[in-house]
């Protein structure tokens, strides 16, 4: 009976392909949401990762960069730099908000850097200079491509025009593109010329982040210090959590749709093969065996849909950002685990519709015209 099931399915390859494709696109919709949030979350922490600091120091009560605001007096960076165990510090002024580039607002992480803290600047430049001076700005290469703004053109940060002097790589994201300006410009803008937002601390060899944190908290008032790992995790988790409900809702919607598609395919297949089923019943195959055959068909369609969705995800979704550079997508195997775990219940549930038809099959059908 299982052989019959398979043979019936593969005897109509077009129908099978269309059904499996529809199931896979439903699954793909779920993966897409998750890939967007993971892609964006990765980009949200890229600055933190690229700085490779051992410890991040920020305003007391703050433990994030995303959706956060932090202000510290600049002398605190000097004080931390003089502490034993500290090899080097770097510091930035930061705020997030829109930057007008090519007539459009781009929501960005704006990093104000001082010439002595070049380490805090862009890590890869595709064109132009790396460190902006007063009245200058380094923007992501992707924004330059999308907006047509080139080196030498002007952009507007709040009320001040800045001249583009460099294009950075690997700094674009929908919600947190990294734009580099001088500390002086940003300081004037946020009325914080004597302040930093975050201080990056690099430890001497052999010093653990935890020891350094303890030391910094003991020596410097009103600061929070986090290891790079904790800081990055905190930001990534926050970003991912913001999309968690949407991902679960889309999983439910995609699952329901996939269930219906599998149910419809299984139902129409069995409906179409009523006479063959009647022959099987007349030959003595039990209802149970016919149920299993029907279930098997649903499982096969779902499995093909799942495999197709994995293939499509690793091809189309990986290729998509090259066509639409605004979209950062990260496809990872774990995104398919939830889908795989619901694929079997989908198959079982979907086959119920088909089973309802099987029950009604009258062996006499075989003798009818």
């Amino acid at each position, binding site marked *: 009976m299982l052989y019959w099931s398979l043979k019936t399915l593969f005897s109509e390859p077009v129908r099978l392909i269309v059904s499996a494709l529809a199931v896979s696109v439903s699954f793909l919709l779920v993966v897409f949401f998750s890939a967007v949030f993971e892609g964006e979350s990765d980009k949200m922490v890229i600055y933190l990762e690229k700085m490779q600091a051992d410890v991040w120091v920020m305003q007391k009560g703050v433990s994030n960069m995303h959706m956060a605001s932090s202000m510290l007096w600049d002398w605190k960076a000097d004080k931390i730099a003089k502490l034993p165990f500290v090899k080097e510090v770097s510091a930035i002024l930061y705020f997030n908000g829109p930057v007008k580039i090519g007539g459009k607002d781009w929501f960005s992480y704006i990093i104000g850097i001082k010439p002595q803290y070049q380490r805090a600047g862009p890590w890869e430049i595709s064109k132009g200079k790396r460190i902006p001076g007063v009245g200058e700005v380094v923007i992501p290469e992707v924004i330059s491509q999308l907006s047509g703004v080139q080196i030498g053109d002007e952009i507007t940060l709040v*009320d001040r025009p800045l001249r583009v002097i460099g294009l950075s790589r690997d700094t674009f994201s929908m919600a947190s593109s990294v734009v580099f300006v001088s500390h002086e410009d940003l300081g004037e803008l946020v009325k914080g010329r*004597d302040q930093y937002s975050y201080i990056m601390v690099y430890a001497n060899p052999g010093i653990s982040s935890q020891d350094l944190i303890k030391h910094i908290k003991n020596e410097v008032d*009103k600061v929070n210090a986090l290891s790079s790992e904790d800081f990055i995790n905190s930001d990534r988790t926050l970003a991912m959590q913001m999309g968690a409900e949407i991902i679960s809702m889309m999983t439910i919607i995609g699952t329901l749709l996939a269930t219906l*598609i599998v149910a419809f395919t299984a139902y129409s297949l069995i409906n179409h093969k009523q006479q063959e089923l009647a022959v099987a019943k007349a030959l003595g195959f039990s209802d149970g065996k016919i149920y299993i055959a029907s279930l098997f068909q649903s499982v096969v369609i779902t499995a093909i849909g799942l495999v197709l969705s994995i293939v499509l995800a690793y091809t189309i979704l990986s290729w998509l950002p090259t066509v639409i550079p605004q979209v950062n997508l990260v496809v990872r195997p774990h995104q398919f685990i939830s889908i795989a775990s619901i694929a079997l219940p989908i198959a079982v549930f979907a086959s119920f519709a088909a089973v309802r038809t099987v029950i009604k099959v009258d062996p006499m059908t075989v003798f009818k015209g």
Partner: protein
Amino acid sequence: MLRFICRQLVYEPFRSMLTCVAIGSAIAVILLLEGFHTGLLVQLKNVSLNRGADLIVAQKGVSNFIASRSLLPQLSREAIESIEGVKSAHPITSVPVIYEKAGYRKSPVFFMVFDTGGGPAVIKEGKTVTKPRDIVIDESLAVLYDLKVGDDFIVSDFKFNISGIAKQASALFTAFVFINYDDMIDFFFDSDLVGDISNLPLLSYLLVELQPDVDKYAIAKSIEAIETDADVFLPDKISQNDVALGETLFGPVMGVLIGAGYIITLLVIGMIMFAAIHARLKIYGVLKAIGFSNKSLINEMVLESVFIIILAFPLALLIAQSGAWLIETRVPLYRVPIFETVPILRTFFSALVLAIIGAYLPYRFMAKLDPAIVFRG
């Protein structure tokens, strides 16, 4: 032909129902995605409109009400209120903070600090901020953190008391909470933050209320003349800017998602039409044998497909509305308006186009159909 289609549908009611449900669900996915996109933009649009101002004053160069940092000189309120035709200027400040509660996740929250105006637009439960430490939280926080009126709301060890729960006070995946200025200053001092803040962000925007029958454009000019560090906007304009920012942020992703929804619908319709032809091979054989051309049969398929869309669309609206209700009830941080004219019409007409394309998908199969099939067993 229409009668033939109706008879086909009535002949197999379960199959017809399943067809309508499958197509309706595929269309519902598009409607939900469209609704989600619209909801994100509506939330952004309402942030400034819900503040109830005639004019909004922002730091010079700042053209958004949300996701922007605006700092106005603290004496600007007094200066603006002195302009003839201005009834009052209500200060408002937005401060991003991260809310944490033991056993729950972290959430970014916007403190909307207000004084005499610009507070929560609609209070669902409880009352607005009337006494020290009162706070009005968005309904999404109440659901997410199991909070109710009277509960404590603790941020950076500073304890507020929930006096009310606001309806739909969120945007950009972020909930708003409303507090007064005295509490914000206490919050900064108690949280030990003030020592490192040279300029407390006390005044982000001024919400200007005008006397009746005054020329708002003339007053806007007067404000910009008297307060050179500020730009003045009509609420509609600043809300359009917020929507444009939202489009830049979400447009590409939502475009791809809605595109995926259309592909699913096309595949579902194609699959259904293919199955319909298969199920009726003999009938089509008879029709071909008695002289129906391929063209007339495909026309019948197109008509049937369009007819099914017309039947499935109300069901799609119902499914989408139920989904939207579920999302808005369980996660009120999001709004998913389904019954918006433009997205509905766009989806309906796109579905009709997809139905026509979907009906043509099995055309080759139909064209190759041998009329002799009717004489086979």
